[in-house]
């Protein structure tokens, strides 16, 4: 088999509504299950599980009829959210083994329930030893995401899809050697090439029912009589690729969603639902060799409002426990105001950090382990309470800011502690403590507070600090004193000119 020939694989799921439902509710796997087009007994069944089919339930019948045939039948209403997520997951399975993949156009009619992706299968021998190995790996990856599908590999997308449709059960693979497309398609009905309705009618009128019949017609006459659409069919029948090259997706935004059967108004069952969403999201990320970054949780409330929350992750992680805790923290701090009837989780996949030791720097924590630790600590302590401290560009004595902790940044180690060793440090009090101060000639004479008490023995100051005068909320004006009280404490005392009160904002320690 020539490795130069462009090859395309098609991963196909014939029964997407059913697979999407089972992906979200794997516990229904062994049950007689059917998916209906809507609620109510008159709704039509659009997908039926194998067990239900064995019990005599047929597709395209009403729910009432199906229940009459099989009393134990479990009927679920088709969920667009689940199907969208399943289609996206199918693409993720493909992107896990090939850099270029795209979702196949949706079919109509008898193939309306199928979902398919095309992916580049050129030159896969080097990685998977053979195309058969590649197809098996793709099947296994899709299976791990709860998407049992078929894989066919051919020289064009359409032929690969047709070949995949002809496979009987999930997990089957088919390889069509280059140049064998025409022979493969020849006995098949012309409708398999999906011609436009008008052209299909014309071909039927001409007595052309099979692909071989189409290929037997003279090209020039076909073009002049039936136009370019007929020539496109001929190219398809010959196995030529007529579409643009497969794209490599630039974004890694992943979305998992679910429409709930009943509205949920308590946090515990909602957390359970979100845990399922997260586990599916993480499986997709893992399939693409990515980790979960920041999350956007959107709750569709019963009162019609949408409740969207941004949940920051300190570092990319694939730890389900940590992410569940982060989401729980966000929900507990701001519980939804009404019952929830739909949940979606969206994230931007981020590359998994690799370990790279530095020759000129002491080994720090491994990036992957550090990422897990940071995410877990943030879940424990709350948003914005984990990071690297920074001095804020502000005159307020309490100002500081937090920056993401990235110890991997190279720097030049300082060899000696310098003259700073033994410098007196400040211990901040957040929030500043109230102090009751007796003043004599404008200077504090006696202090009573939770940390420093007694007569002021020694004193330095005042130093006036003002700022943000243009903002009524942030305006500050302090007179600060360094005082030593009789109990031995050396503290920084400040008088707030705006609020007319005394506070201790730091202790020299």
């Amino acid at each position, binding site marked *: 088999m020539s490795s130069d020939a462009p090859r395309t694989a098609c991963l196909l799921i014939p029964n997407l509504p059913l697979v999407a439902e089972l992906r979200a509710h794997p516990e229904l796997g062994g049950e007689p299950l059917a998916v209906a087009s809507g609620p109510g007994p008159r709704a039509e069944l659009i997908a039926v599980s194998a067990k239900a089919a064995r019990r005599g339930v047929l597709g395209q019948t009403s729910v009432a009829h199906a229940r009459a045939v099989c009393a134990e039948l479990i009927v679920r209403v088709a969920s667009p959210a689940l199907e969208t997520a399943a289609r996206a997951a199918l693409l993720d399975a493909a992107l896990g083994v090939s850099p270029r993949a795209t979702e196949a156009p949706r079919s109509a009619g008898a193939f309306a329930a199928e979902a398919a992706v095309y992916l580049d299968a050129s030159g896969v021998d080097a990685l998977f030893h053979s195309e058969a190995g590649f197809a098996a790996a793709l099947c296994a990856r899709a299976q791990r995401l709860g998407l049992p599908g078929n894989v066919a590999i051919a020289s064009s997308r359409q032929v690969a899809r047709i070949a995949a449709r002809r496979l009987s059960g999930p997990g089957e693979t088919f390889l069509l050697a280059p140049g064998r497309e025409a022979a493969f398609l020849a006995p098949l009905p012309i409708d398999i090439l999906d011609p436009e309705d008008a052209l299909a009618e014309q071909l039927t009128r001409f007595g052309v029912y099979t692909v071989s019949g189409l290929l037997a017609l003279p090209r020039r006459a076909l073009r002049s009589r039936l136009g370019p659409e007929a020539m496109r069919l001929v190219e398809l029948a010959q196995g030529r690729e007529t579409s643009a090259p497969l794209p490599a997706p630039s974004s890694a935004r992943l979305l998992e969603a679910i429409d709930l059967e009943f509205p949920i108004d308590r946090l515990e069952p909602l957390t359970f639902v979100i845990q399922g969403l997260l586990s599916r999201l993480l499986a997709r990320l893992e399939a693409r060799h990515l980790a979960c970054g920041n999350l956007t949780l959107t709750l569709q409330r019963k009162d019609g409002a949408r409740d969207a929350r941004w949940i920051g992750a300190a570092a990319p992680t694939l730890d389900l426990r940590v992410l569940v805790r982060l989401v729980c923290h966000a929900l507990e701090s701001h519980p939804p105001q009404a019952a929830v009837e739909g949940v979606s989780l969206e994230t931007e996949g981020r590359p998994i950090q690799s370990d790279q030791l530095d020759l000129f720097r002491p080994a*720090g924590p491994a990036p992957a382990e550090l990422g897990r630790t940071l995410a877990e600590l943030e879940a424990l302590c709350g948003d914005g309470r*984990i990071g*690297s*401290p*920074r001095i804020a560009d502000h005159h307020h004595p309490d100002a500081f800011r937090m920056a993401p902790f990235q110890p991997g940044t190279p*720097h030049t180690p300082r060899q000696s502690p310098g003259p700073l060793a*033994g410098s007196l*440090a400040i211990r901040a009090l957040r929030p500043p403590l109230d102090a009751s101060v007796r003043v004599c000639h404008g200077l504090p004479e006696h202090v009573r507070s939770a940390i420093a008490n007694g007569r002021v023995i020694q004193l330095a100051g005042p130093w006036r600090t003002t700022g943000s005068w243009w903002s009524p909320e942030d305006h500050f004006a302090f007179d600060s004193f360094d005082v030593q009280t009789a109990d031995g404490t050396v503290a920084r005392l400040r008088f707030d000119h705006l609020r007319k009160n005394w506070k201790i904002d730091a202790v020299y320690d």
Partner: protein
Amino acid sequence: MRDLGPQLRRGGTPAEPTARLATGIPEIDRLLGGGFPRGRLSEIAGTASSGRTSLALALLARSTGAGEVTAVVDCADAFDPGSAHSAGVLLDRVLWVRTPRTPQALHCAERLLEAHGFALVLLDLAIPDLRCVPATALRLARRAASSGTALVVLTATRALGTAAEVAIELAPARSHFTGTPALLEGLDVQVNLVRHRNAPGPRTATVRLRATQAA
């Protein structure tokens, strides 16, 4: 045998000398035999203005200055980035974990020790009414031993008992306000070594902590 006297000692492999993390303050390093031990739990106890925060920042400065990664688990929410920067701490190599409660702080410290690679984890528990179960302290000590991290705990009064390999108590001795108008020049603190397996020499020292411009 009788003449051998002090030359006799219990059999077994002699313990390897413990690596130490120096503070850069000569009096304290001399007191501790080179600094705080790595892979061990150490305790610094002291009241307000006893110099415990200055000592902790000196450790951070020394460790980050050598390019090591450190963490501050701040149960008291008392870490001041400006003061740390003035003390020579490289802030980008410090992970600051601001935990509101003691159990969370202990859990965070344990998790950081499990992550391996942090040269120093500073656990600030200098809060009133500290409740630290001895079993927790022992578990932290074991985690520190397995990770090789120097775990230094700041407390208001001694709370870790025998779980700490090294424990020092600090107390304010004298403050220095000088000049006209007066300025806080420094603080003398009394350092008392209360627990050390192999105390090399004296067990007390007095240290002068000098106020910097930013402090």
